[in-house]
């Protein structure tokens, strides 16, 4: 375990170095000093109470979507349609928040989350079914479903669930009414957007840890991902596992949308997801699908993005800089050849 973790960390380090080198080149190209930029970035992400709180706020949805992606990837199915589930979940939660009234607070929140989960899971039934039982490429179907869901949510809100009391109903502003106060997640430190969703994220992480380390189903899931033939030989119904992996992944992804709506925006605003689902996939891959490292990767990603948001106003370093960095990390993370290159060199040096 410890050796495995060490190796995993080593790989992450190498990937990070590669990413830092490449993004430094870009920052130099932009005419700025990368060292100063990184220092500012770090400051914006981790130094000072306000920055830490904001970093946590941005990390919260990534933890949830990161776990969502990791569940599917562990089973060897590449569900990249989590963005769609975020939208579906956000809209369902908003609708429950707006149209269901008279429930006590916690119950209302729970209802909204559960409805979001059901809708999010349900949304991916077709891709999951096709992948699990008929081997239809899930990479494309889930990605297409996320486009479809974004458009569908836009349609539904524009034509059916728009806010009737909104006076400045501009064409671009697609939004529902505000949700009832009983369905809102309370803010932890009032002026900041950080809210109780972080506990939901924490709970999901713990459940994911227990599920993958302590349950038979978690083991079966992992075996299906690592070696389908072996799993089949061992009597695991791999089609079923794959099916449920995608559904569960969608359901968890939908929670991220629901908490964003219930904790931050308090209404469905089209485009509320700042690529939460897509970034969750990057987080899961960066965290190497491990229940301990995925949340850490989410915090890393969210914090850096927060740092970049601060820097965006004064310099050329922006959110995109961080996205480039993280995507390079993700590209390097499965690159066996890259590590062998380094290992071989080290071996050669030892022999000298």
């Amino acid at each position: 375990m410890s050796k495995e973790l060490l190796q995993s960390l080593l790989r992450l380090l190498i990937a990070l170095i590669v990413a830092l080198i490449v993004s430094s080149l870009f920052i130099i190209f932009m005419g700025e000093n990368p060292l100063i930029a990184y220092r500012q970035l770090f400051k914006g992400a981790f130094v000072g109470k306000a920055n830490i709180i904001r970093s946590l706020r941005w990390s919260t949805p990534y933890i949830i979507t990161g776990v969502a992606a990791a569940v599917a990837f562990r089973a060897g199915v590449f569900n990249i349609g989590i963005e769609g589930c975020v939208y579906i979940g956000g809209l369902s939660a908003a609708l429950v928040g707006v149209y269901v009234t008279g429930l006590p607070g916690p119950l209302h929140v729970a209802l909204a989350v559960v409805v979001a989960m059901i809708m999010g899971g349900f949304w991916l039934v077709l891709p999951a079914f096709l992948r699990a039982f008929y081997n239809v490429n899930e990479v494309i179907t889930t990605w297409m479903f996320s486009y479809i869901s974004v458009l569908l949510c836009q349609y539904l809100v524009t034509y059916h669930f728009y806010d009737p009391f909104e006076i400045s109903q501009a064409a671009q502003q697609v939004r529902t009414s505000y949700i009832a106060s009983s369905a809102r997640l309370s803010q932890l430190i009032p002026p900041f957007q950080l809210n109780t969703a972080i506990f939901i994220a924490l709970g999901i992480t713990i459940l994911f840890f227990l599920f993958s380390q302590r349950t038979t189903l978690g083991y079966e899931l992992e075996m299906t991902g690592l070696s389908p033939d072996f799993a089949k030989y061992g009597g695991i119904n791999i089609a079923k596992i794959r099916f449920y992996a995608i559904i569960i992944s969608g359901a968890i992804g939908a929670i991220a949308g629901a908490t964003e709506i219930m904790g931050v925006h308090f209404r469905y605003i089209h485009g509320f997801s700042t690529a939460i689902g897509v970034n969750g996939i990057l987080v899961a891959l960066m965290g190497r699908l491990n229940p301990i490292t995925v949340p850490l990767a989410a915090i890393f990603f969210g914090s850096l993005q927060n740092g970049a948001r601060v820097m965006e106003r004064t310099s050329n370093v922006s959110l995109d800089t961080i996205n480039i960095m993280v995507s390079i990390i993700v590209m390097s993370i499965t690159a066996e050849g890259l590590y062998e290159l380094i290992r071989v060199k080290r071996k050669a040096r030892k022999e000298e």
Partner: protein
Amino acid sequence: MLEILFNAHTVKTGINLATPILLGALGGVICYKSGIFNIALEGNMLIGSFAAIVGSYFFGNAWAGVLLAIGVTVIASLIYGLFCITFRANVIIVGFGFNMFALGITGWLLLPVFGGKGSFFDPSTPTVGNLKFSFLENIPVINTLLNGHNIIVYISWLLVILLYILLYRTAIGYRMRALGENPDSLRVSGLRGDFYAYLAIIISGACCGLGGAYLSIAHLAMFTENMTAGIGFISVTAVIFSKGFILITALAGYLFGMAHSVGIQLQGIGLPTQFVEMIPYVLTVLMLIPTAFRIKRVYFKKADVQVK
């Protein structure tokens, strides 16, 4: 009703919408046949469309833009190839990462290069012109189908034929296909598999670059963030649907374009915009369903996701 849906304008729009899909799919076919499941087409096209508008804007010539697009995309796809082939990383993960990388880099460069965020539009930037054959003008149907299209459209038709010849009539194509079906056979013959894999990646990069250029500088010189919006994935679908048979791939690309074009006409009779925009995505899912009922054949090694 039918006249509203199928007229000369629909055909024109259909061809217009199909061309980037077709060009992407051509790149995808070459990779598919060489055993690389390339989902980085999307990112390649995005980079291509950005490079095209940069070239066209700064050199004042649309063809400079096209050439820059092809050059930059080939380099970008070589990076993708470096990870996939030399570093033996998981193709899907690298592809996904690459798409995100392309999205980030084009969005980021918009600000320093053009001084704006989100999108760039400049009417004075030169665009690739249309080609008119005067001898076709008097033939009714042929005229609409074949005449007056963008030059890149004609290049894409030419590419279909050229790539068909390359794949099925030359030694290089034969080896590429051998690489896709059985990589060991190349090794047995003493040939370097990596070389042919890289060659496929380069060709696919060039096709995607051209497709990207078509998106940004064919009619209007315009670039918006994430302007490919899934076209690369639709191209991949066209490839899977056709099992990598290039002529069917081209037809599948045109099917997407035409269906979308008919959908746009439907908007005129009251279909909400969102549903019109949904059509290519829904069609993509529908076109993948037949692959479920196919006799299993190992054309390419489908990479299982193994990150650990």
